[in-house]
């Protein structure tokens, strides 16, 4: 991450974005885990700025990080380089457009961007129709809820750490499952992965959201 941010700043040295340079300074001081947390929060912050201020600098920052990864994901899912580029651009445009629907209490930015990339992958490359559930109603973040957002980010980091410690064949399994490259009976093995805490955390934030909504409706 530090390396990428450094490249980003070398490339965009003239960028006057105060937040970003502040983050870079901080990154150098933080431990690896905290650094990741910082960057995860930073993506949430970028999305907030995109949605509130139509901030193209924040979007560019997000784009530099996610666009090459989303493109790689689409290529590995069977897309040609040209198709992957086109679909990636469409996915990133959707990120901009739907930024206001991103809820940091429910998912990290990476997870949210993944779902957009996945839907593009199914639609454009794997040609699979996957009906979407109804969205949960979204509420403006309050002080107490900001804590939930941080917990969700931490869960993502913990999961990433857990995944990195898995045997290679299990990590391959995850990749193949999401690239649409897994024999169907093997997909069930995904359920053996350590997702329990993530699930209960997400459940807690949904419950809290429902409670808040209930209060509002009274």
């Amino acid at each position: 991450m530090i390396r990428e941010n450094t490249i980003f700043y070398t490339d965009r040295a003239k960028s006057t974005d105060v937040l970003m340079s502040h983050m870079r300074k901080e990154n150098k001081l933080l431990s690896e885990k905290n650094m990741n947390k910082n960057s995860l929060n930073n993506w949430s912050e970028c999305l907030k700025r995109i949605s509130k201020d139509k901030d193209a600098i924040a979007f560019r920052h997000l784009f530099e990080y996610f666009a090459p990864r989303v493109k790689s994901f689409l290529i590995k899912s069977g897309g040609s380089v040209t198709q992957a580029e086109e679909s990636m651009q469409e996915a990133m445009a959707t990120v901009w457009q739907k930024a206001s629907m991103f809820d940091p209490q429910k998912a990290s930015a990476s997870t949210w961007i993944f779902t957009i990339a996945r839907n593009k992958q199914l639609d454009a490359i794997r040609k699979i129709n996957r009906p979407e559930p109804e969205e949960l109603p979204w509420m403006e973040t309050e002080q107490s809820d900001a804590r939930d957002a941080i917990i969700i980010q931490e869960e993502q980091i913990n999961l990433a750490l857990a995944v990195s410690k898995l045997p290679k064949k299990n990590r391959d399994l995850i990749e193949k499952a999401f690239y649409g490259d897994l024999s169907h009976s093997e997909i069930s093995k995904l359920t053996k992965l350590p997702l329990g805490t993530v699930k209960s955390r997400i459940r807690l934030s949904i419950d809290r959201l429902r409670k808040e909504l209930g209060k509002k409706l009274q």
Partner: protein
Amino acid sequence: MKTKHHIPSEILSAYSTGSLPEAFSIIVACHISLCDHCRAEVEAFDTLGGVLIDNEERANIDLNSFEQTMKLIDKQNNSCLASGKKSSDIYPTPVKNYFGGSIENIKWKSVGGGIKQAILVNTKDASARLLSIPPGAQLPDHSHKGLEMTMVLQGSFSDEIDNFYRGDVELGDDNLTHTPKAGMDEHCICIAATEAPLVFNSWLPKLLQPFIRI
């Protein structure tokens, strides 16, 4: 009312990775619209996808990639985004979408005994339909070739396994022969998805074997 009969993790993970036939995905989408328990599980699998994106390699992007994307954004800027809408009636949005968003467009066809059906999707893998069963009516005995998933939208039904209410999902396969009977209060409306009977040696029953004999 709390949902009692949920969807197994294996199917939720297949939904998250986009590996489930559309007919079954409709039921998952409807179920998690009503069930926070299974929604949280699908989103946990999505989190795994988030980790995957973070760990993903960095492909070379086109030189003008960013500018092209900004152009796309400008072009689409005036388009209106459908916001998170909530269905107020018995049909969750994923079902309504098959009828152009309006239940007026549902074309019910009688299949005998007062039972009506409306096809949602019929592909080579699997098909899904809405069923409307009069109060107290019984579906003929049937066993299944491959997987069958049924979710209640209105009313209830009961069979040899249990009682099923709105949001509940029952799974059946080759081993289940059952005679579902609609509750007495009102018409039972449900969505049923079945694997196409001609698909031989299909994957879903195999996938389900560990937990299907509940």
